[in-house]
């Protein structure tokens, strides 16, 4: 039986470390294992170094590091099947959420935002990362890994851009333009130049790259880099009306006796109109009002439908029915002559309840401002 000296043990440990074994546990395990073999099998006056190198060679096929790689693979993929199952489950959930959300959105029924949000989140933060983790283990070349990483990242970014668009969150243009830019200037070049070098993938790479350029080009043409002059003019018109309204409100003062029924009704209508406008503006621009320096922040009211945001938690519908009741009460007052009544014809107040989601947001805002002006003048 051979007895190992401390310096020989240090020699073995250094060699194991130099071979690329970094896990402390594994280093100690291998060290003890080699030592046991040497102690049991080497004769007392045998050649330590020669025996050590021939022994450690039997531990691996190509290099010692493969033991650590295998260990890490087992540790990472010990949940391989659980991950696969989670991938399929999250994929199914997101697909179902997208279908239900889209259906609700088309029908302008409440809940569309919830389902679409759930779809976006499960798809981008669970499904895509899981696909990446499962696929990256199967890929051998570094290039493919880079393409897969950028692709996954873009997928997540793409989802977030859409989520930001749907939710009208600030920064939506920024994130969308970054997604397009990364796709065009990073992903396509990397994909193209890595694929074209391989004779087997050459043709597919060229075809896929052309398709990708076309798709990104089409999406870019759909992207409005800056709001059109028409949208800007409509925003100016709204802001000017608002300024006029403010001026009228301050100069008119309190004409009506405080505490009177009419004064209460007028202030109720004003308040409800204001809340409705805040809700519409919040959905559209992310803020409840248009600040004075709106041009500096590139805030515009892009014309569109009121959409799901208006239905969310039923706030919009409730405010609208409150307003209808308040105006009806105001108009039915005996003292009101015909020309003093608030005109509601062809306004959002007359829109059918199931069509309100399709109502033009800018029209609604302007109509509400006009109602407020009427109140002050009559």
């Amino acid at each position, binding site marked *: 039986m051979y007895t190992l000296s401390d310096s020989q*043990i240090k020699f073995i440990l250094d060699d194991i470390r130099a071979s690329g074994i970094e896990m402390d*546990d594994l280093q100690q395990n291998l060290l*003890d294992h080699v030592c*046991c073999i040497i102690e049991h099998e080497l004769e007392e006056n045998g050649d330590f170094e020669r025996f050590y190198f021939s022994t450690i060679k039997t531990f691996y096929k190509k290099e010692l590091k493969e*033991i650590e790689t295998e260990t890490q693979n*087992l540790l990472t993929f*010990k949940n391989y099947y659980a991950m696969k199952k989670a991938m399929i489950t999250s994929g199914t959930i997101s697909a179902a959420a997208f279908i239900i959300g889209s259906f609700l959105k088309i029908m302008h029924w409440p809940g569309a935002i919830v389902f679409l949000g759930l779809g976006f989140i499960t798809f981008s933060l669970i499904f895509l990362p899981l696909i990446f983790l499962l696929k990256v283990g199967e890929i051998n070349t570094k290039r493919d890994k880079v393409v897969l990483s950028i692709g996954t990242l873009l997928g997540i970014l793409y989802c977030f851009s859409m989520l930001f668009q749907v939710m009208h969150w600030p920064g939506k243009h920024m994130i969308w333009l970054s997604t397009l830019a990364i796709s065009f200037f990073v992903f396509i070049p990397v994909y193209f130049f890595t694929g074209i070098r391989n004779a087997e993938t050459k043709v597919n790479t060229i075809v896929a790259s052309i398709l990708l350029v076309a798709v990104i080009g089409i999406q870019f043409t759909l992207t409005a880099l800056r709001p059109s002059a028409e949208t800007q003019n409509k925003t100016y018109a709204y802001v000017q009306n608002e300024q006029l309204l403010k001026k009228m409100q301050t100069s008119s003062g309190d004409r009506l006796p405080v505490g009177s029924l009419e004064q209460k009704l007028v202030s109720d209508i004003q308040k409800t109109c204001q809340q409705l406008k805040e809700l519409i503006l919040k959905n559209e621009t992310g803020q409840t009002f248009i600040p004075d320096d709106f041009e500096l922040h590139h805030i515009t009211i892009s014309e569109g439908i009121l959409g799901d945001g208006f239905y969310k938690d039923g706030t919009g519908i409730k405010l609208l029915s409150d307003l209808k009741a308040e105006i009806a009460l105001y108009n039915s007052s005996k003292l009101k002559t015909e020309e003093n009544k608030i005109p509601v014809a062809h306004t959002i107040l007359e829109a059918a309840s199931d069509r309100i989601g399709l109502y033009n947001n800018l029209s609604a805002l302007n109509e509400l401002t006009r109602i407020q002006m009427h109140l002050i003048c009559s």
Partner: protein
Amino acid sequence: MIYSSELIKGTLKTIVLKLLADNKKMYGYEITQRVKELTLDKIQITEGALYPTLHALEADGLVTTQAEYIGKRVRKYYTLSPTGKSKAKEKVSELADFMDTMRFLLDIKPTTA
């Protein structure tokens, strides 16, 4: 005859769990030697397969470890945890069942001495 590494790969976890169930605590080298002894050298577990498996079993909570200093080096002893004990039984009976099925599938007649 030494069995191919593919055959051993699928059963290594079961072998290690069963050995640990029969012996209170063991270290890596001891496991390879015991298997060699019991199978008359027919099954030789490689270091490259054993240690990744032991680390995976530890990460799964099926075994617990205990370090013992032998001079300048550390020896890691492996012991089955309570879940490891039931897992060992489960794995052995699964393999026994599998062997029965294979015997039937491949139509292997029991060899009579």
